[in-house]
């Protein structure tokens, strides 16, 4: 509760495009590289 869009990425089942999941995967990967 209380998470703003800047602190989390969102995806909706049967509502968001595949790109949303790709963005999530990129975020996780970039965090790991840093």
């Amino acid at each position, binding site marked *: 509760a209380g998470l703003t869009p800047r602190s989390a990425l969102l995806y909706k*089942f049967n509502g968001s495009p*595949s790109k949303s999941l790709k963005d999530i995967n990129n975020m996780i990967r970039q965090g790991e590289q840093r």
Partner: protein
Amino acid sequence: AQKYQDLEVDRQRRLERIKQKQSQLQELILQQIAFKNLVQAEQQANWPPPSNSIIHLLFIVNTSKKTMTDCSISNDKFDFDNTFEIHDDTEVLKQMGLARGLESGSCSAEHLKMARSLIPKALEPYVTEMSQRSISSVFVTSS
């Protein structure tokens, strides 16, 4: 000159939006083609797989490289001690080859013909362009 600049900015924004929307449309086309190929393949299979070895669409898959990943699950969240990736079922169907190489522009002529028959006729130019990976020319042609 100011008006020209404003219009130029407007033009760039529109081009960007169109590029995104074309990409989304491509994804949807691949989704429909892959799904129809899946259904056809399963219908033509000699025998159905055991019911305890299948998973029905729609689903997403979470993958972790390290097999010792600790994953604790409560009723609304997963906690992992390592990185993961998430892929939707359309991605799984693409990796199974059910998009017939369209996603990477490496589609044979026979598969291209089949793919065109699986989507509404008005969208066939998109499939042709995807097979050649030159989606930008679709826009030019339509204009």
